[in-house]
């Protein structure tokens, strides 16, 4: 399933709420959480990480993974947390609005 425009940032922030992850870990986590429904291209995830980092919502540092590999771990910053709350309520509003239009399904005439 393709991602809706502009939801990637929100997904990344939400994923990092559990704790720091490296770039590939984020992609894998989103994929897992969505039960493989959301296909996250690393090619588009990586620029998004850089964008969020530039905005100061996430921060990165080099750390060693559980498999003793060095990787760059991203974690949520306080402004990022605030942002996540905003994005979340905006998303909820959007879902509600779409639901109002779409539900209840008109009964198909037979």
């Amino acid at each position, binding site marked *: 399933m393709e991602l809706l425009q502009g939801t990637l940032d929100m997904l990344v922030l939400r994923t990092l709420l559990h704790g720091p992850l*490296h770039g*590939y870990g984020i992609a894998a986590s989103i994929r897992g959480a969505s039960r493989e429904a959301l296909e996250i291209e*690393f090619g588009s995830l*990586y620029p998004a990480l*850089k964008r969020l980092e*530039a905005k100061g919502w996430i921060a990165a540092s080099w750390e060693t*993974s559980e498999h003793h590999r*060095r*990787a*760059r771990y991203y974690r949520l910053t306080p402004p990022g947390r605030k942002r996540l709350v905003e994005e979340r309520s905006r998303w909820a509003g959007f879902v509600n609005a779409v639901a109002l239009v779409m539900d209840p399904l008109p009964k198909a005439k037979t």
Partner: protein
Amino acid sequence: MMLWNRLKYLSPARRRRQEREMREELESLAQIAGRRELGNLTLAMEEARAVWGWAWLDSIFADIRYAFRTLARQTSFVAVAVVSLALAIGANSAIFSFADALLLRPLPVSHPADLYDVSYTTPDNALEGMSFPDFRDLGEQSRSLSDLAAYRLTQVAAASNPAAPAQIRFAVLVSSNFFHAIGVAPSAGRDFLPSEASPAAAPVAIIGDAYRRQNYPDRSPIGATLRLNGIVFTVAGVTPPSFTGLDRFVLPSIFIPLGMAQQLEGEPSDPLADRGRHDLVVKGRLAAGVSPASAQAELAAIGAGLARQYPETNRNRRLAIRTELARRVRQSPRLVSLVRMLMGLVALILIIACSNLANLLLARARTRGREIAIRLSIGASRSRVVRQLMTESLIVALAGAAVGLFVAYGGILLLGTLSVPSDPPSFLGVEMDWRIVGFSLLVALGSCLCFGLIPAWHTARADFASALKSGGDGASGKRRTLVRDLLVVAQIALAMLVLIAAGMFLAGFRNMLVQPPDFRTDHVISMDTAPAVVHHTPARTRAFYRQLADRVRVMPGVAGMAMAESIPLSPSQSILTVVPEGYQFPKGREKAVVLGGSVDAGYFSTMNVAIVRGRAFTDADRDTSRRVAIVNQQFAKTYWPNQDPIGKRIRLDSPTGPSAEVVGVAQTGHYLQVYESPAPYVYLPYEQNPRPRMTLIALAAGDAASLAAPLREMVRSIDGQVPVYNLRTVATLYESRATGSWLQFFQMVGSMGFIGLVLATTGLYGLIAYTVSRRVKEFGIRAAIGARRRDVVWLVERRGLTLAGAGIAAGALLTALAAPLLAASFPGLGVSSAAVYILVALALLAISAAASYVPARRAAALDPLRALRTE
């Protein structure tokens, strides 16, 4: 935060670190997840760099570097493009500098935009000055103008040391707050003090920087004495070099408080007390927050109040404020139309050059097609390709502007010589400054958009699959050449318009210039003297002139002499206010201001001005005899149509002024310009109308120029204080007025036509050469199956001539539409003669044939075997 991050990224060290980190990070992730899993990392990195925000800057630098590399490989294209643009941009900049000097340049004061001109409008004169009492009242009553300055231009006899002979210089009589109001501070010394406005104050002067350089090259002028019209002044200050006065064409040398006017000019009454003397130019600075409209409303009310209070002097006068530009346009409508026409011509040349370049770029697109196709196919966006192509165009345009500045400089040097030899010299001030550079850049940018955008769009739109396959340009061949054909047709049409406009202009001038002068120019020399400025009373001035006339008459080498208030075509012409008897003036007007002046009895015979009816003045027309006048034919025609002017009466100055009887009619001549339309002129006898300044005209038995020194000496022997100026042969004056300065216009307009022609021809040649190069194979086949050389030549020629024919037809249509505009902008000049049309059309056809012949011959000379082997 964001901005800071971006700015940090500008530092190369930081960029390197960030780049390294990114690579390390992706490397480590690749080890964790496997490279396949991560997908296209190059793209990801590229997009990540874009996030840092300066990628566009990088890509622009890359574009520029790439553009330079591409252009460096195509020297002939660059040379042709830069030269055509340089010609066009240079012509535009030169004409702009001319327009700037004539009309556009703001006053050399601080905040020129809020300094407004305040003047009267009367039924007789759209732009009349104010009197000093009116100026004073205005200053007291106006709230919308925060500062008001008044000044009047005059000429004085100036001597920087007592031993030197006095020279005539432009001086400005200024109100005491003048420099403060216009915001110009002296570069040395001080401004006038309020107390120095009084006539009783010690005379002080502020001098211009040019005058300081001439007369005090190695010492400070402050405190030095200066004799002006015989009065000793102390120099109090010097204006900065950038201050060239408030009038165009005049570079004032000396500034004097208005309070000195009466003493300086030796007037019997104080001109500052006379409400009827409307001769002050007034400038006002708009108070903060006041709109010009509300200032205008206030001024109109003040003007109406003054008219009610002083009906005698202020009846029918309306007070108005104008921007400086509006004043100049009103002052010299003729210049406006000249400038408009020249600007129009150079704009056409620019369009021709641009379409030329567009055509070159379209041709280049064919060779670039493959390169562009590759770029598109590996993922470059079309907008990116357009940007790349536009970068190249912009570089070419800027190079054109840079070279164009040299062309402009040449034009400016030529225009700079446009002046009339006069004492003091007139000052045009056409010069190269940052305004011209800015204008050139603007033109370059504008033309870059014109010539670059269409080809760039065209190229980027190309179907790259087929381009890659065929190695061609990708666009359908027919459409491509249609655009190019249209461009060439447009070029020829515009070139035709430029040539015909230039031709009409030149033919019109030629008609006037080949007319013989309507007065004697050979063997005569003229000399201006101003005895009045050294405080001669009117009686002594008369005595001086009588003495001078008597002595010159018997001078060796002099065959005759005359005196006149002004001689024809001299840049300063005297005027008269007259009321012709029986003439019904339009409502609100009661008198006419016409050219005219005092002449003595010898004038008509010495200057060879024909009297067509009645008689010339004689020595019997004395101050005690009946007042008489002579009018020219145009005056009689204007004011007494179909009537006999002899015996009619003219009142002088006002409807109640003295009346003079017309005793003769003189032939209409040219008074201000050789190209003027016939103007009314009134001659009055000098003895009845003595003037403070007269021009002496001596008729030489031999060489007129050799009389110069003896004449100067003669004046000195009568009164060493009297300044002599404008001493020159009438032939010199006529030359400079009638041909001299117009010669530069000839050259200018001529070179514009030439540039237009060259550019259009290059365009045609380029297109034909291109077509030939594309049809090499076809010509080879034709030759192989037996086409004669002549047939091939004709084949190519036919195409060139078809395009030229279409261009000429379009040009004729265009010119027919534009001709009324041209004629309207130059009444009496736009001689639209069929000869010009036919000549230009034939010339264009011939040149087009020649331009096509070169590639045609090349096509015919092709070796069929070699031609078939190409491609």
